[in-house]
């Protein structure tokens, strides 16, 4: 544990030092790369939160990809037909809740294997959105909000305080989730249910209800991530638009040890690697084939996080059905 902490801090210090050095060399590019890291990393961080909320209560969710795809599509579709971005965002969140409830229904009420239930969501989302999708639509997107005063701080202003509304909202959600998980009775109960549901049940906590609630709430967070993707980050929608982000998020969740802050850090690291890659490709400094450059964020993240994550332990009751009489 101690070793792990020091490694984490050393890594952070190195990153800060490198950023500082680069900033002194070329402030504009460095600032834009770090700002891009945040907006690339955020959807992954939010998607990882979906995984954390589900798995912490014992439900494996490999349908995050489907949630992202479906909710980003619905968000875009509603925003484009009503020409109202706010409607779009709310519909996306609602769509996320629907996928969450569907997963809960299959895996908790029907006691279906959770991996299969998640796969069903992924397949349905891919099929349904591809079928309904029509090219050539546009939708209103959110526009960045500069936070007065803070946005004038050099470097940090542009990175943190000149973003779209969903970035701020997403960050608030992540921090709130962290606090809730470790400092409220909801969090304590959720973790107990994911580790040893019998203890929660015998303490009067309904395992069934809490799992339903958390998987649905997680769906809402996934919907937010979807809305962010189609209505803020990209501003359009296309088939297969989420490109595996839901699966990447699962890996980041593991690297972050099922802790919201850990997953956020892992997602930001991945976002940074992606931003740097983009910059490299744009500058075309290395003359390396694009395919290899595109691999870079994945390779870098796997190497660095695999070293820093140390021994990880998933919630003990993850993926298991809870039966009272077996407790």
């Amino acid at each position, binding site marked *: 544990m101690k070793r792990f902490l020091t490694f984490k801090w050393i890594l952070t210090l190195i990153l800060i030092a490198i950023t500082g050095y680069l900033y002194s060399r070329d402030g504009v590019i460095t600032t834009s790369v770090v700002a891009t890291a945040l907006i690339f990393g955020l959807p992954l961080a939010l998607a990882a939160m979906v995984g954390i909320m589900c798995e912490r209560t014992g439900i494996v969710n490999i349908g995050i990809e489907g949630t992202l795809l479906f909710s980003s599509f619905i968000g875009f579709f509603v925003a484009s037909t009503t020409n109202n971005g706010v409607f779009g965002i709310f519909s996306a969140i609602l769509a996320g809740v629907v996928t969450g409830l569907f997963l809960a229904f299959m895996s908790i009420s029907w006691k279906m294997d959770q991996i299969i239930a998640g796969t069903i969501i992924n397949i349905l989302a891919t099929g349904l959105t591809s079928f309904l999708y029509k090219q050539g639509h546009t939708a209103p997107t959110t526009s960045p909000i500069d936070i007065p005063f803070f946005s004038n701080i050099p470097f940090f202003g542009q990175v943190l305080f000149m973003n779209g509304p969903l970035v701020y909202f997403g960050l608030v959600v992540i921090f709130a989730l962290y606090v809730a998980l470790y*400092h409220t*009775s909801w969090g304590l109960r959720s973790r107990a249910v994911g580790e040893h549901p019998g*203890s929660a049940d*015998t*303490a009067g906590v*309904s395992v069934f209800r809490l799992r339903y609630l958390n998987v649905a709430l997680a769906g809402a967070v996934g919907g937010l991530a979807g809305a962010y993707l189609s209505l803020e980050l990209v501003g359009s929608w296309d088939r297969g638009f989420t490109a595996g982000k839901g699966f990447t998020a699962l890996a980041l969740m593991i690297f972050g040890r099922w802790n919201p802050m850990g997953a956020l850090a892992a997602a930001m690291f991945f976002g940074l690697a992606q931003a740097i890659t983009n910059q490299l490709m744009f500058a075309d400094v290395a003359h390396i084939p694009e395919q290899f450059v595109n691999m870079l964020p994945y390779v870098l993240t796997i190497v660095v996080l695999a070293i820093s994550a140390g021994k990880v332990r998933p919630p003990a009751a993850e993926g298991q059905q809870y039966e009272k*009489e077996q*407790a």
Partner: protein
Amino acid sequence: MSALLEITNVTKTFPGVVANENISISVSAGEIVALLGENGAGKSTLVKSVFGMVRPDSGEIRIKGELISPGDTSGAIARGVGMVHQHFQLVPVMTVTENIILGDEPKRGIFLNMKAARAEVLALSEKYGLEVDPDAFVEDLAVGTQQRIEILKALRKDVDLLILDEPTAVLTPQETDELLQVMRNLAASGVGVLFITHKLREVMAVADRVVVLRNGRVAGSTSPKETDEEGLAQLMVGRNVVLQVEKGDAKPEAATLVIRELHVNDDRKHLAVSGLNLEVRAGEIVGVAGVEGNGQRELVEAICGMRPRISGEVLVSGEATPDMHPHKVHSMGVSHIPEDREKHGLVSSYSIEDNLVLNQFDREPFAKSWIRNIGALEDNATRLVEEFDIRTPSIKTTASALSGGNKQKVVVARELSQDTRVVVAAQPTRGVDVGSIEFIHNQLIAARDAGAAVLLVSAELDEILSLADRVAVMFGGKIVAILDAKEAERGLVGRLMAGLSA
């Protein structure tokens, strides 16, 4: 009708067994009712039905006259029922405090108030004389400590009906006495207590009424005034039970298990065993007596290769055993009955036949090179189930479906059925009924007489005094005295255990 708890005609079947058949029992306010019965008689099933953890097939359960719906645990809690579970309901990765407050957490605004929670746990622990460290993680704790947490959890709330399912299985005699006193006080204040135990002394000491279950049915009821321990045992088992251990003199030979200058840390990296020396000779039982937490658990785990040794060595027949390699240690002839059967003794999702060969499945006759010999496996299981009286519908049943005492018998059967040079037995009779205690004790003596060196650790001083040929008193991570069985008199051992000199 003023009965606090009224169970009427409750029946519950599991695949292949009728766990409860038409059971009717009532408990009044202020009354202590002891529920007795052999392992697998259906005691836990019955009380779990009351607490909503089992759904009976038919019958009615009323609390204060109100019908409770099957499987409604929070309803039972809301009606003032508290329960200590035989199979501890604790979250291993959480702290003692978190476990105790779970379900009814002290809050400040919307946040948990851990400071208040911690203070509450300390106060509880003080009030009931059950020592716990509020900040320790449950997974690091010995079963005795876990038992205390489980009890504190139930005592925390003001309940009207307290159900205790073998709360004393791993408590020390002093802790047990304190708990019995707590039960009397609660009953005096009007709480009804339903108490399950295999220790007849406790029944005689506190019960107002005794109900005996046999094979899922009420076999009779009595009260401590009308009978004695022998009578209770007879009612339970249906035959005469010898409560006193009968054994011949030991004929010890050369030292088989030799421990030299052993140093071992506990989970929190404090030295728990500090320079321990001990020899156990072939053909003798050495009992380790000590107050829990003086390094017994660490000693046992270090011997068996389950906990890193800092320094020192453990020899079996002159050969050094490897550190942290339980399988190798076992194959050098060391059997181990672990104190925590759920964690170290069984794979609960495996069948009984597989559990019975967990540490020898890869050897003749159970396997030939890479192929398992299912026939040999089944023969072995059939024989042991019969011999050790393991109550199960079939050898294919998973261990999780067994009653607590029968799980224990599976572990004991596996470890004592092998030809071993050393037997390390920690709490070997935890949770088993009087008839089976007699049997397990005889098996330990038989292992001794067959030339094994037996190291026995138990929270029950009586068990040690009656079985051991020599008593090693452990205090502060060392053996402070070794007494011959003849000179090991209760008072003396007790003083030595407390760290006083003789």
